[in-house]
């Protein structure tokens, strides 16, 4: 029997939709342009444009006497950033951001390592949810909750007393620059809240980096004679640096820009974020607020340059 192999000819390009898809198939650049124009418009014009406008306003003049802004260009606001009062704010914020990033990295690494290398299926899903669950609750609620936890007579203090560690806590709270009168009004308390709130942003990128690490690399290292700690230092840690860098960019920049936690927890004293908030809200000094906005941008640029210098992105 003869087998008929004649197939139906494909329907010719009728209709505007057909013609459009044919056109897009033949001209892949047009297709790409159609895909990219909306996000580029959004990102370029609305986001980037307004950011530049904001920074431009940092060069405007604010008249202290009449409390008005005139579009007269001056570097006075930028110079004012280096006045001792403002400079202190920058150093305080920067110190906290560095401390929070370091602590988050140290805390996140073991969790991320366990998630990436030892969990599968349901256990892994459980860990993902456990890490992200705190992000489902409102940030403000969590910050307020911490003020209660850390308050005098709060849960944290109760635990410390149960274990008989009250003198130790008092010793820590007496250290200048770390302590304060109570946990909730100490630098330490503020630091704890920051680490708690930003930790998931550190765990997930490190976990992703470790997940990409082929098991054969670890076997090769052991095969060549490396003991487990040598494999960790020589192979695992260097290859997870891009993840740590990505996570620390989150924790670093989020801490630099935060203006709520510093108001709720910790000793008095402005952070960059709360300074911007006060300058443009209460005082109406938009140019000074804009000048302060420049600080985290510059700090993050410097941070990225250092991280790149250290070779964090070489393995990408």
């Amino acid at each position, binding site marked *: 029997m003869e087998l008929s192999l004649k197939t139906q000819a494909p329907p010719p390009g009728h209709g505007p939709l057909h013609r459009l898809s044919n056109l897009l198939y033949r001209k892949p650049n047009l297709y790409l342009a159609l895909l990219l124009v909306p996000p580029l418009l959004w990102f370029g014009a609305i986001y980037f444009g307004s950011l530049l406008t904001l920074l431009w306003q940092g060069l405007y003049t604010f008249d202290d006497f009449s409390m008005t802004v005139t579009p007269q260009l001056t570097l006075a606001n930028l110079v004012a950033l280096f006045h001792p009062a403002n400079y202190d704010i920058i150093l305080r914020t920067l110190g906290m951001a560095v401390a929070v990033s370091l602590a988050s990295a140290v805390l996140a690494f073991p969790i991320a390592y366990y998630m990436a290398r030892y969990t599968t299926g349901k256990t892994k899903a459980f860990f993902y949810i456990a890490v992200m669950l705190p992000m489902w609750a409102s940030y403000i609620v969590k910050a307020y909750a911490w003020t209660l936890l850390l308050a005098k007579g709060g849960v944290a203090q109760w635990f410390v007393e149960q274990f008989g560690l009250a003198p130790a806590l008092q010793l820590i709270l007496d250290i200048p620059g770390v302590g304060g009168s109570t946990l909730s009004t100490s630098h330490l308390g503020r630091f704890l809240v920051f680490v708690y709130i930003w930790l998931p942003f550190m765990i997930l990128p490190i976990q992703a980096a470790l997940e990409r690490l082929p098991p054969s*690399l670890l076997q*090769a290292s052991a095969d060549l*004679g490396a003991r487990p700690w040598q494999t960790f230092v*020589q192979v695992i840690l260097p290859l997870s640096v891009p993840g740590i860098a990505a996570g620390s960019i989150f924790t670093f920049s989020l801490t630099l820009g935060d203006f709520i936690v510093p108001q709720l927890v910790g000793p008095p004293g402005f952070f960059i974020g709360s300074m911007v908030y006060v300058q443009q809200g209460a005082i109406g000094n938009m140019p000074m607020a804009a000048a302060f906005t420049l600080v985290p941008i510059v700090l993050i640029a410097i941070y990225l340059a250092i991280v790149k210098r250290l070779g964090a992105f070489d393995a990408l």
Partner: protein
Amino acid sequence: MTLAVQFTGVSRVFGEVKAVDRVSIDIQDGEFFSMLGPSGSGKTTCLRLIAGFEQPSAGSIRIHGQEAVGLAPYQRDVNTVFQDYALFPHMNVLDNVAYGLKVKGVGKSERHARAEEALALVALGGYGARKPAQLSGGQRQRVALARALVNRPRVLLLDEPLGALDLKLREQMQGELKKLQRQLGITFIFVTHDQTEALSMSDRVAVFNKGRIEQVDTPRNLYMKPATTFVAEFVGTSNVLRGELAEQLTGNALPFSIRPEHIRLVESRLLDSPGQAASGEVQVSGLLHDIQYQGAATRYEVQLANGQSLSISQANDQWQASTPAYQPGQQVTARWARAAMIALQDVAAGGGQ
């Protein structure tokens, strides 16, 4: 002669699956030993047991006389060339090769000199400053080899190292590996699923099937005297004839193997004495139903009267021959020497050996 690696009744069980099932092998010092088998036959697990990435569920593994069960990979004097090469992406080629020396605490200048030496050995001198990502597949393969050799192991394990290379490069690397092994005089244990590769490079080959060893022998014996139906069919192509036909031809119910190139094809109508084979020969007839031209040889598929199919390979050694001698649909007769038939066992006889 000392044994490089000795397996005694080794099993490795993953849950319900017996990946390696009571395997015993003796691998001589300085031997090029291949482990051949289809995927999932247990050959790679055996290699990983020697490297120390797996621990056996039962049995004993000795490496140069020392019991290795319970030892971590970094406590064993063996090195591995991985299937995916497993080069460290954040280190350049020189640091990759020098890694084994670095973790042993060898000083910088000495380890760099020895790494350069190892790179020169695999013809990659001067590539030290490059990153693995900047190398071709064949070059990465050589770096992996140099990295494994820099520790001067007494046993080198190779896990399908040529699998990702294209045919020409693979053939070239086969020659170089063999040369390197002779030059260094160390034991190579080579895992592959490619029987030509195993036959052309090895001193001896172990054929694995379903976690057990079917036969361990020299390449020539493996091909000419396969012990089991599995070996006959997996190593090269073979016609395994069984049942009534086997009994009729050999007077024995055991299945037997006859290689396609040991059969001669004769056109039935040209036979002087149809049905009558010369002494010491057997003959069968059937219908020629497919011809595959393969260049150096032509393969004929003949359908025998009992429905069994017979594969016959005839060398195309007549340079003048212009027209094909046979057409599909023709009645043909196949003849071969009685002595060319090898009686087979259906399963490996006892133990792992």
